[in-house]
């Protein structure tokens, strides 16, 4: 059940270019992997959506990349700081999957550690911009890691032929490419989001031909039938400035955001 609480930061650890911010759990439910929380961004008017990265006992951990004022403020938090945290929100991954394959790109790796834990460490395929970024792969057990110019999709076909079911999170071009290879993949998308609970209508995107709020219908969507009863479907929207203004390479679900951020991957302000 979603709740809002003021929680203490326990640790903030650098991981390549990313920050793993661990806060006390309070009475919050960690939710289902792929769900997200709204984290207060100190000094900013709006919180930022972040998918849960890890759920150790008594803690909630979020992986984020500082790409805008909000994520920069969160990346600068120190142990003892307090943040308002609200969640879990949205729909996560459907976990009843026979041969799961986790696929992540860049900061899109964020929800995969918790997902891996809940699924018993299935195989994972992770792609990063550089070896430095790839340090985040240490969070995901049983992972095969590729670094640009090699893309995760180049390795994906063999897994899919092998009847693996894809659960992915990453930048939009990666998700589109994954979907082309694995149409039944569960994909975590992102859109700018002010509230995370259906109040602002900022994250409306076209899903199955109809504009829906991604915070409620998603952020995890799959092709046939919804996750956990929510309507689902392919296709986000296109915007003319998308590549520039919102999808910093490789941000991903869970760290969505900034500026109104998107739930799931980071965004650029």
């Amino acid at each position: 059940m979603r709740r809002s609480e003021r929680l203490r930061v326990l640790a903030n650890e650098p991981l390549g270019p990313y920050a793993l911010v661990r806060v006390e759990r309070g009475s919050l439910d960690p939710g289902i992997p792929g769900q997200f929380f709204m984290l207060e961004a100190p000094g900013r008017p709006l919180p930022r959506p972040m998918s849960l990265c890890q759920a150790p006992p008594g803690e909630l951990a979020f992986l984020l990349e500082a790409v805008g004022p909000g994520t920069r403020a969160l990346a600068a938090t120190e142990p003892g700081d307090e943040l308002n945290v609200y969640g879990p929100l949205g729909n996560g991954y459907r976990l009843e999957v026979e041969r799961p394959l986790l696929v992540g790109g860049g900061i899109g790796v964020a929800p995969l550690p918790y997902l891996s834990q809940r699924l018993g460490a299935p195989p994972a395929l992770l792609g990063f911009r550089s070896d430095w970024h790839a340090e985040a792969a240490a969070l995901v057990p049983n992972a095969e890691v590729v670094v640009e110019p090699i893309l995760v999709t180049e390795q994906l076909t063999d897994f899919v032929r092998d009847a693996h079911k894809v659960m992915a999170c990453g930048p939009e071009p990666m998700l589109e490419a994954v979907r082309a290879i694995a149409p039944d993949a569960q994909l975590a998308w992102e859109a700018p989001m002010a509230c995370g609970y259906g109040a602002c209508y900022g994250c409306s995107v076209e899903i199955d031909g109809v504009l829906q709020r991604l915070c409620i219908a998603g952020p995890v969507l799959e092709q046939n039938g919804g996750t956990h009863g929510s309507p689902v479907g392919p296709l986000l929207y296109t915007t003319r400035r998308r590549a520039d203004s919102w999808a910093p390479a490789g941000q991903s679900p869970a760290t969505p955001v900034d500026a109104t951020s998107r739930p799931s991957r980071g965004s650029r302000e």
Partner: protein
Amino acid sequence: MILNASGCLDALEAPEVARALDAFVTKTVTPQPREGNRPVRIAETEAGMLNSIGLENPGIEGLLSDKLPRLAELGVPLWVSVGGFSASDYADLCAVLDGRAEVATIELNLSCPNVEEAPESAAEIVTAARTRTAKPLYAKLSPAASDLPETARAVQAAGADGLSLVNTIRGLALDERTLQPRLGHELGGYSGPALKPIALAAVYQCYRATGLPIVGMGGITTGLDALEFMAAGARAVALGTVLFADPQAPGRIRRELAEELAARDLADAEEVCGLSHRAGPVRVA
């Protein structure tokens, strides 16, 4: 009395938030369903946010058949915000809502910065709406009007029962790298803390100009903010952007307001309303 600003809360998705309010104001409904503007629709700035949602709504039929019955079950008085593209749009919507017992008050959204405006003046729209409903009519005005007190007086003369002050004010945010507009619709409505002094001025001036009941809104984030709006002349306050950051804002601000009143030895909101206009400073106990 604490309300939400129209378009800043979906009571069916967050009933616990709506129940913490004294009345729930719907997102603006138009005669026909609207998809709203294309993404990107929101952009945070240093002291607030821009939105260009564009009145996404299911249309009056969708509201009446699907949402209104469920909203009525919340047990919170309902204000329905209506919008249109001509005076007759507003009048027709009011006529339909007039027959619905679930609706306590109708708010006329005369100031959405993200869609084309009706060609008629605010007063002409209020006049048209007034002939079609006996329900209380609140006119929601923009702080950008060149002579807001004059507009307020005109809608009062046209039969408005109250004023909702203020709507967002038009703004622009640019991407720091590309220097292109961050919103898909380019310009948006600016809300949040930066709007507060502008909104306070609007409340202050319109209270003096009309004496009408006013719902004050614009950047309220604390109980002290709410107190200031009341002192400037608001009978009630509405919460907007703060609800996005803090779904528990209604209860928190209610508590803070009670503390602010007590600290000044003020009995209640009634005593505060318009206090800034009366002589003599208020001493903090």
